[in-house]
């Protein structure tokens, strides 16, 4: 279900109820782990990635030249290490790479791996409840995530 620039986006669940800024984007079973999926929510394109029971959502625009991250790849990556030491491989399923120039983004934080201080993509909290996947498009600050979890009482 990897989308490209020309493919129409997956229909947003505009017919689904919105609860306190959360938008239902589909059933958990609609998403395959490791496959980036473009979803339109509230006029924004998001790239949604499932990793087992977890979901990540970033804005589907690479800050470099605005390619769709959803047309890229999800994988692990080489982790920081010392020169000459064995290179650890990790973060499997947590890194999305842009299809054009390969810029890597951490799905947990939205930050680029090469220049985390200056380059990032907006991240949207995702909730799973009763087998449905909800994206919170209201919040703009990562710290809000925890508060809302308590508020809404979602469980995986």
């Amino acid at each position, binding site marked *: 279900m990897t989308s490209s620039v*020309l493919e129409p986006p997956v229909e947003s669940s505009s017919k689904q109820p919105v609860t306190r800024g959360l938008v239902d984007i589909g059933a958990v079973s609609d998403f395959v782990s490791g496959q980036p999926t473009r979803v339109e929510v509230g006029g924004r394109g998001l790239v949604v990635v499932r990793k087992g029971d977890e979901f990540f959502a970033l804005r589907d625009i690479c800050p470099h*030249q605005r390619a769709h991250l959803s047309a890229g790849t999800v994988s692990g990556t080489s982790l920081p290490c010392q020169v000459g030491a064995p290179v650890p491989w990790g973060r499997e399923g947590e890194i999305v790479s842009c*299809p054009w120039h390969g810029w890597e983004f951490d799905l947990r934080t939205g930050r680029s791996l090469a220049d985390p201080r200056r380059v990032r993509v907006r991240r949207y909290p995702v909730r799973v409840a009763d087998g449905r996947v909800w994206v919170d498009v209201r919040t703009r600050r990562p710290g809000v995530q925890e508060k809302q979890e308590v508020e809404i009482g979602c469980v995986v």
Partner: protein
Amino acid sequence: MDQPRAPEGLSLIDCDVHNYPSTVDELLPFLSARWQAYIEQSGFADPWISSYPKMFKAAARRDAWPPSGKSPEGDEPYARQRLLDEWSVDYAVLNPLYVVGNLHNLDFANALMRAVNDWTVAQWLDADPRWRASILVNEQDPAASAEEIRRCARDPRFVQVLLLVRSHAPFGRRQFHPLFAAARDAGLPIGIHFGGSGAPITPCGWPSYYLEDHTGMAQAFQTQVISLVCEGIFEHFPGTQVALVEGGFAWLPSLMWRLDKNYKGLRAEVPWLKKLPSEYILDGFRATTQPMEEPSNPKHLLDLFDMIGRDDFLMFATDYPHWDFDSPRDALPPIIDGGLKRRILVDNAWSFYDFERT
């Protein structure tokens, strides 16, 4: 500096697009029985040698793979849709990076050279009027290259002669004269493009990573610029025009300063030169924009253009379908606007190439 403006109706010229046979089978119809048998018996697949896996299969954008199953560079209808149509390109120059220069059997290399040019005509130029192409030549055989230039130049859709920047000797050396003579006689510019292989990219041996090999490509371009100037190619073949394709351009000012400085003391070594090296460089060369320089302060780009000193020097290119593709919408930062932007996107290429030659 006065130069012809492109017709009003044009909005984008792409000076670097890549076509390449999906498999060697596509070239068989353009080869003799002898070479068809040779390819079948030897299992020859491709002349490309690389010691640096590219992290992108076929060096392509991950979203440029055609549904046909062909490679991104091998599917004309898909390239037409994803590049010419999607980005409203008026003309695109095809550069098939088929490195026949890697093959030391000159007869085989020359047969493939001709087959690739014939394949480009049949599969690309005949398919859509927006395509133009460079003539692939064999840098290891300048005489055969000259003959191929004469043959292909009869088709007005060939607008350039293609050389790959990594060569067995710098292109200014006298052995290459037949090639420059043929290009001059045909009225075609030379395009020197990123690529080729077989020798290290550096004068210090082989680096370890593709990142180094790719970044180091500027060294090869610098070598060729210095060689063409110092060996007097622009004196011996007046009117020669050379496009530096996919080499970057930020290194040009310092190269001009250094070469002029040294020339002032060492002129007696190259007495055929009658002007400063930088004058030959500014008159004889142009560069494509891709891969676009990305200084953290975009204003430095304008400073760079100022240091180069000509506003008709740069020509836009996407490098479709490669991974380092430059988007026509976003590769030029907003600080490049108005007349300068239009010159880069359209006018400069319109004046350098002859897209409507007869």
